[in-house]
């Protein structure tokens, strides 16, 4: 077994015992990227030199016996939405093509403090808006299990690189399912933490009240290890919650006794691929065989999740993305063209407004522009009450549904997606079909609760199927233990896509 096929936890043990150096490990991943990322397109930028330099420094540190961080020497891939000082951070957008933030996101600081090696930046839907990574302004990412298919999104690169052994650990973000859905479609583990569990400082905002940073890895254990590093209160983020971070990696292997799982019957039946339903039902039976009790529960407002999400998220996005106006940083249209255009069309629009209009029309992709317009409309005078305010009310009802459910059950079990990975281009002209990809995931974001996706089978066509567990706020520790119970009893997570 090659070193890159081992789990991060196994690699860490080898690093600590001296059987492996971080430079060797990093180089092994760089080789793998070199060999296969041409087919996958997971990385926007591979930071070969700095990664090897970091790895060498950590090896040195380890050799001197200095205290080491929790990820000492392990390579980590970062979604290109997390600000990294003096390093391009594009958010998958033309708008930020040449943008180098003057500061590090808090999670980047945490990774560096944990002695992780930053391997490179992964591809994503522009400003995290999308479910297929096709909205990246730079490249598409292919699903390692079938390169004619999408990897999911928006953290498509983050999931694909882990799935194809190009990184042991990867950091993504989840606004409506952007970690869990690609993890499911690529056959890896992805966790969306409770809102406020991980600092958002330096995460380029899509929808501030929904965005959370979270880990992706091949196993639940590795996911626990990375979450332990990412989580924690941050005085720079007013919405981060001041709660101690449990040692997830130390408890992840302790099975839960008297586990009660809730099943929402409406998650099955109409609209769901029968093979997915079968795989998820089989997973539920695995839990039963492990001693879990299954309860059928109602989530009366879950059907309104997508509608609610597609009002709140665009509203916040329309405001969050107003700063990309061409005036201060990022893409600005050609000034001479502005002047020439105005002279030609004789519009009484001022040069400033025309500069805004052109910069934003040229710098943003179609889906981003669509959501900015949706949000602007929904917040406008006369529509605010009917759309935004109503959506907030439904959001509260959805949270109440969860609160009621978690009084009866420890976790909710169900599918992540209704279908396996679809073909590239299949849904690009049908935004509604694309939005429905988030059907089972958005409610966790609206309610601010935690959710995890883990491999639970394959379709007859060989595509991965994901299982979702959702837990009450700040119950990540139990969520990981429950997920690990399943993973210890199954071997879906050990299978590898075949890429030449």
């Amino acid at each position, binding site marked *: 077994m090659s070193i890159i096929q081992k789990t991060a936890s196994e690699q860490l043990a080898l690093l600590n015992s001296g059987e492996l150096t971080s430079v060797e490990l990093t180089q092994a991943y760089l080789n793998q990227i070199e060999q296969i990322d041409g087919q996958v397109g997971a990385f926007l930028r591979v930071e070969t030199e700095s990664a090897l330099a970091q790895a060498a420094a950590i090896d040195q540190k380890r050799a001197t016996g200095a205290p080491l961080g929790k990820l000492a020497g392990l390579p980590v891939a970062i979604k290109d939405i*997390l*600000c990294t000082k003096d390093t391009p*951070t594009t*958010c998958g957008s033309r708008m*930020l093509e040449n*943008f180098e*933030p*003057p*500061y590090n*996101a808090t999670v980047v600081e945490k990774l560096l403090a944990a002695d992780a090696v930053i391997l490179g930046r992964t591809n994503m839907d522009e400003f995290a808006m999308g479910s297929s990574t096709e909205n990246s302004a730079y490249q598409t990412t292919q699903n390692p299990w079938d390169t004619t298919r999408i990897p999911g999104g928006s953290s498509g690169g983050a999931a694909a690189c882990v799935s194809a052994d190009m990184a042991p650990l990867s950091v993504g973000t989840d606004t409506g399912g952007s970690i869990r859905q690609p993890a499911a479609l690529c056959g890896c583990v992805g966790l969306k933490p409770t809102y406020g569990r991980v600092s*958002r*400082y*330096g*995460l*380029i*905002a899509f*929808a*501030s*009240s929904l965005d959370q940073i979270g880990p992706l890895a091949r196993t639940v254990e590795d996911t626990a290890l990375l979450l332990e590093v990412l989580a924690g209160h941050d*005085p*720079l*983020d*007013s*919405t981060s919650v001041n709660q101690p971070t449990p040692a997830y990696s130390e408890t992840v292997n302790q099975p839960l006794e008297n586990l009660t799982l809730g099943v929402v019957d409406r998650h099955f039946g109409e609209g769901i691929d029968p093979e997915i339903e079968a795989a998820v039902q089989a997973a539920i039976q695995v839990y039963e065989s492990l001693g879990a009790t299954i309860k059928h529960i109602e989530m009366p407002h879950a059907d309104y999740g997508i509608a609610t999400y597609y009002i709140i998220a665009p*509203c*916040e996005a*329309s*405001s969050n*993305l*107003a*700063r990309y*106006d061409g*005036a*201060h*940083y990022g893409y600005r249209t050609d000034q001479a063209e502005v002047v020439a255009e105005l002279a030609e069309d004789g519009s009484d629009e001022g*040069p*400033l*407004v025309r500069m*805004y209009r052109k910069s934003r029309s040229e710098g943003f992709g179609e889906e981003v522009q669509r959501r900015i317009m949706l949000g*602007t409309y929904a*917040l*406008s*005078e006369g529509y*605010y009450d009917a759309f*935004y305010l109503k959506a907030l009310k439904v959001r509260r009802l959805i949270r109440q549904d969860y609160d009621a459910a978690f009084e009866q059950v420890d976790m909710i079990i169900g599918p992540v997606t209704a279908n396996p990975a679809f073909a590239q281009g299949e849904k690009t002209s049908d935004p509604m079909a694309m939005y429905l990809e988030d059907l089972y995931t958005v409610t966790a974001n609206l309610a601010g609760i935690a959710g995890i996706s883990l491999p639970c089978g394959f379709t007859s066509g060989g595509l991965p199927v994901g299982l979702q567990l959702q837990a009450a706020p700040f119950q990540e520790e139990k969520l990981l233990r429950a997920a690990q119970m399943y993973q210890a009893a199954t071997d879906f997570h050990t299978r590898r896509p075949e890429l030449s």
Partner: protein
Amino acid sequence: MSEFSYEIVIGLEVHVQLKTKTKLFCRCRTEFGNPPNTQTCPVCLGMPGSLPVMNKKAYFLGMRTALALNCGIPKFTKWDRKNYFYPDLPKGYQTSQFDLPMSEEGYLDIKSTKDEFEPRRVRIIRAHLEEDAGKSMHDEAAGKGDSRIDLNRTGTPLLEIVSYPDMRSAAEAKAYMQELRLLLTYLDVSDCNMQEGSLRCDANVNLHITTDDGVIATPIVEIKNMNSFRSVERGIEYEAKRQYDVWQETGKVLGELPKQTRGWDDSAQVTRSQREKEESADYRYFPCPDLVPVIVTDQQIDEVRQEIGELPSALRERLQNEFGLTIYSADVIVNQGLSLVEYYLELAAAAGDNKLAGNWVQGEVLRILNDQEIEIEDFPIDAGRLAELLQLIQTGDLDSSKAKDVFAAMLTSESSAADVVKELGIEKVDEGALEALCQVLVERNQRIVDDVKSGNEKAVGALIGQAKKENPNVNPGQVRQICLEIINNL
């Protein structure tokens, strides 16, 4: 067209820069006058991924002001985003408070000591916190459109105090601004420097015109750019006349035209229509998802209330009622600020004569402060030393003109009043000797005696002159009084 009488209706929106070391949502400094864009960070530059964290100091300064304006403090408030595009607003929205401001429903009383208007209570609709924008400097010459932006000011905490349209003249509006500024300085919440923009005023103005068919209202105009008390007054006066003329011309009334924004051009002394900042005035307010709501406790409100000392209106009343000063004197002293009031209180207590102390503070002391352009803190004679001087006046050891000589000498020395009196060779004349001197003078000047007897009391002045020649230390008042007594008893 015939002339009609009208009433000016004025409401003011005042923006106060709060005196915090750091900005409202980041740790950048708030100093004025530093090189452009040197007081910035990812947060106030609106960099991607940056997040705001509320400055609690600013919140409590805002609360202190609101309490002093008799406002109610809701227990729950939140932050909202006011969305619009402008280059001096790097995030594309201003973080402000929309439907749940930090304070509501207060008032500020104003009155005029010069009878320019009746005393009036101006009600406050709300006072809320928001962040300041940056500054744009346009070079619009020849349509070049070369603009420069300084974001040092971006994110500075502002308290916006919105009044009801309760004022009825430009003089009232000016008085409201002056009283508000005084209150803010007593509270020590702002530098209140109108030139530097730490106190800014926008006025909403329209007219209620009494016509033959009843009272009509003209469309409301918001006047901006009034950077001094005088321009507030002039701007409103100009705007009232302009609105009246426009109404005479067009007959347009409230509701028939959209609200207009006009800027006050101080050099031309006119208001001019301003190009709108954005095409539509729909700010798409919504709660800021990056900031948590603010929940305040009764205990916090009480603590802030404790920080508030005696305020101008209460002090004026105390100086009138307890210290017996005239309304005018009380006003003059209080309007100079808390330090001068404290100086007065100390002086009055030490001198033992409230009115005399009032006269001296309002007269000699203020004259020196104005002449030398210094604050009372830098005034060379402390209240204790001045009190000794006032005591010498009360005992009759010094007459007022001698006292002024002593005062002048004390300004440049550190000696006590008594020592200065000695240094200047001023001696109190023995009462017996003075009477004897007067007796001699009366006997020597029969012509003056006759003049006085025939009703010309002023003639006695010549005797005072002679007395001074004989003995420079005599008190002219005393000489006058004694001589008159002797003459009248003849």
